[in-house]
Every structure is written in C-alpha cells, then in structure tokens.
C-alpha cells in the first residue's frame, strides 16, 4: 500500500507492534473506559495508569517523545474545562479581584479540572499508541471482529484508501491557488481579494474536489463491477486467535479492572 506522510503508522519491531490488532483495539477502548470511570480524586490510580501507558510507549520503541509531542493536539480543549475551577465546590482556595467582583477558586473545582486534563491526556496517549503501532487494515479487522457492520467497515476501508489520493488532490488545488495568487512578500501587505472573495474561491475548490471525487467513484464502481463485484463485500476471514493472544487480552482486561476497583475502593 502507498505510504503517505499523513499515515500515523510507524513500523517497528516491538512486542506492541506484534500484538494482534484486535487485542490492541479492545484494550485501548478498555483503557479509555477505565480512565473515564476512575473517580475524580484518585490520583494514585492516575499515576498507575500513566505508568502503564508509559511502559507500553517505551516497549513499543516509538519513543516517549514522539507520543508526548502528539498529545499536544488535544491540549487546547482543556480550556473548555477551565471555568469549572471557579464554579464548583465549596472549599475556597484563593480569590483574586477583577474590577468590582472577584473570582474564587475552589478545591473541588481544581481537583475536577486537573482530573479532566489528566483523563484526556492519558486517553489520547492510548489512542496515539494504537494508531502508531497498528496498520490500518488491522484496525479494520478489529472493527469487524467486535461487530461493527461489515458494510460500514468496508466504507471505512474505501475511505482510508482514497483519502490519500484526494488529500493529494486537495494539496494540488491549494498549490495551484498559491501559484496564481500574487504575494508581495511584505508581512502586513494584504493579499488576494476580500475575505468573501477568498472564501468563494475556496468554495469553488471544494466543489471541484467533490465533483472529481464523484466522478472517480463512478469509475471505481465500474472497475469493481468488471472485476466481479456483485454488491456483496467479501473480506478475508479473520485470522484465528491463538492462546497467547487470548492470554494477553484477558491479562490486560483483568489489570485494568483491578486498577478501576482500586480507585473506586478508596476514592469512589
């Protein structure tokens, strides 16, 4: 398959990469669910969950830095939870005046804010690890194995395959626009027409892209028909689950359940 610079898969030879995609998929979802169910103030559980995911990052050979750099993507959203520091809870921590009124931070609110930020950070690490260590076709297999309709899975597969073709097409459209747009090079110099004009041009590009995709899908359909496609999506049978794979899956699930139990026992 064509390797694209946007493909997040990073090939390595590591136990994490070698693990069955289905196990990784289920364990990633289970990890995120565990993180989500962990009570707000259970800091030690967060430390353990972090240790777990950090170990896997080291084990995967991707480099902790690679994963942590990508987690920055989810960071801006933390702002949405920021006001909760000042609005929930009763124990006042500190307050600072703004004009005629003052903002008071509460201990409960701060705890909730930090735990939301931690939960999101831990979950996104798990998701990054899965995407970087599993080739997409294996993820498709995993989705089939957990019972997502095969029609939807084959659409995902089709979309994955052609999104790189169409992204390249979109990039060519943007390059063509850049080549035709005069730019003075000075920093504050206005370029192009009005904002509305620029938006219309971009809209034209989007329409163009859509039309090309529409016609491409026709050609693809005809090509599929000529190769014997009859509307039934035929996929390779899923490889059998070996004993070791089952063991890893069960061990992972038990570990996560224990961590969750630990959290709820002390802080629930």
């Amino acid at each position, binding site marked *: 398959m064509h390797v694209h610079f946007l493909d997040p898969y990073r090939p390595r030879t590591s136990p994490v990469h070698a693990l069955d995609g289905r196990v990784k998929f289920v364990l990633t979802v289970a990890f995120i669910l565990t993180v989500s169910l962990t009570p707000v103030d259970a800091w030690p559980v967060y430390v353990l969950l972090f240790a777990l995911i950090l170990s896997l990052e080291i084990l995967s050979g991707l480099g902790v830095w690679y994963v942590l750099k990508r987690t920055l993507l989810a960071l801006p959203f933390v702002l949405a939870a920021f006001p909760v520091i000042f609005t929930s809870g009763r124990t006042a921590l500190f307050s600072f005046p703004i004009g005629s009124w003052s903002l008071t931070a509460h201990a409960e609110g701060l705890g909730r804010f930090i735990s939301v930020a931690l939960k999101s950070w831990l979950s996104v690490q798990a998701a990054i690890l899965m995407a970087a260590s599993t080739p997409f076709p294996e993820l498709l297999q995993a989705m089939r194995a957990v019972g997502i309709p095969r*029609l939807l899975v084959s659409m995902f597969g089709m979309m*994955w395959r052609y999104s790189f073709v169409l992204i390249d097409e979109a*990039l060519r459209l943007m390059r063509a626009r850049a080549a035709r747009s005069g730019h003075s090079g000075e920093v504050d110099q206005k370029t192009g027409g009005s904002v509305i004009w620029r938006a219309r041009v971009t809209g034209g590009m989007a329409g163009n892209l859509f039309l090309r995709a529409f016609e491409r899908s026709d050609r693809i359909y005809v090509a599929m028909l000529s190769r014997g496609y009859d509307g039934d999506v035929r996929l390779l049978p899923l490889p059998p689950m070996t004993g070791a794979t089952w063991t890893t899956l069960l061990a992972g699930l038990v570990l996560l359940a224990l961590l969750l139990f630990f959290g709820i026992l002390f802080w629930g």
Partner: protein
Amino acid sequence: MLYSPIQPMHIPDGFLSTLVSVILWIISAGAVAFALRRVGKDLGERQVPLMGVLAAAIFAGQMLNFSVTGGTSGHLLGAALATILLGPWPAVIIMTSVVSLQALIFQDGGLLALGANLFNMAVVGVTVSYFLSASLQKLARGKSWGVFIGGAAAAWFSIVVASLACALELAVSGTSPANISVPAMGGIHMLIGIGEGLITVGALAFLYTARRDLFRTGEVTPKGGAAVWIFGLGIALLLAVLSPLASAHPDGLEWVAGQKGFLEAARAPLYKIIPDYAIPGISNTTLATILAGILGTLLVFGVALGLAYLRRKKDSK
C-alpha cells in the same frame, strides 16, 4: 503541521462523563444503523464505493482553507454540503466515516467521546442542515436562490447548533458550567459558521454551474425525509429552549440534575458495589498513594530493563 484543522467541536476523551458518552454512543449507533439500511435500499451495490470516496472527499476538503485575518483561517466541516448534494441518509453515513476516521487515526476527538462527536456532527449537523435546506428550497419553488440561501443557512446553523449540543454535553457532564460553555462555544461557532457558510455557497455555486443535474430542485422530497425534517425541527427547538435556560441558571444543568437527585441515582449502582469503609488495615489513603507510586515506578523500570535486555540479546546474535 499540515493536517491541523483543530476543530473546537471534536471532544477529546476525558471531558464527558461515562454516562453521557454511553448514552450518546447508543443514540448515534442507532441513527447510523438506520441510515445504513436506508442508503443500502436507495443505492444498492453502489453504496460502498460512492460513500467511501465521497467521505474521503469531505475529509480532504477539510484541509482547504482561506486566510481570514491575523493568522486565523476559515475551513470546511462539510455536513451541510454533503446533505444538500446527497440527501440526509448518505450524509449521515459520510459524516460518520469522516468523524470516526479522524478519531481513530488523527486523535481528532476521543474514542469513548466518538458517540457524542457523531451525535453532534453526523446526527445533529445533518438533520439541522436537511431541515433548513429542504424547507428553504421548497419555499423557493425551484428557483436558484433556494439552493444558495438554503445552503448558507444550513451551513451556519449546522455548525452553531452542533456546537450548542457540544456545550450542553460538557455542561451535563459537569466539565464546564453551562453559563460559560454555551455562550463561549456558541459565540466562537457563530464566527466559524460564517466561514463554513461562505465556502459551502462557493462550492454550491461551482457545482450549480458545472453539474446542474446534481441538484434535485423542485423535486418532491425523498421518501422518509419527513422523519428527518421533524427530528431536525425538534432538535433545533430543544436546543433553542435548553441553551438559554441552561446558561441563565448559575450552575447550569448540573444543578438541575443535582436537584432531582438524578446524578446520584445514576452513579449509585456502580459505586455502591463497594461499601464506604475500606479493607481493615489499609484505611489510609496516603498508604495507598505510596503503594501506587512504588508499583508505578517498578513497572516502568521493569519494562525499561527488560527491553534493554532484549535489545542486547538481539544485538549479540
């Protein structure tokens, strides 16, 4: 980074309570399953290539942007465009594919939060778009302004209403107080929606000239459209009533939920499995903290050591 449309509407994991995530997952899964059946009936064997490639087109189209001012840029989300060109059911499938792959591959939105993101963008976004574009096109009786005004309205409202749904979900989860999140999210997206509207109209203008046959103006509404239409109206009304109500109240919806004892009731079954008192002997949470710290450190060191050992063995071979 090239692929960086950080859309403030893709909720990452951790921001929604588990209950909210699971409920929205169930609703979205139901809607997607229904849409899949409908599209299968209408398109038959064509649906896999058509839906897959067009989803890829919307996905790629989200990269197209234009500079607005001061380093900010407008770009496309595409729910309205897909709805107007293909109808509501295919649009649900296409947006589902786009949002799911963004979460799976680019971590644009969480996996547990995917149900909520699908609900906002694929279900709410598409139904609102359909409701507006279909009603305005009907009003225009086949004249071209129906397509363009309808497109602009559908694009703007689909973004704004979806962002309100997103803000309410955050408020119900207790992550962000409704009196802040609703005006903030709504305000930002009223601006983002303008960019969406302009691009959508630009795209429609291009397609209207190039391929008039794609627009089914003056045609009777496709079968089953009435249900979507009513659902869209319902969602718009519900959010219109709920949002000001929620933001007017000091503590938002959480307060209402708390008053009704609803949150407690929802949490109780899970957390009451274990009694409040802990195992005798380890009653101290500080002890547990220390224990966790030691365990965590051991875990990381163990793995690092094991890995170093494996590497050396491989090298010496």
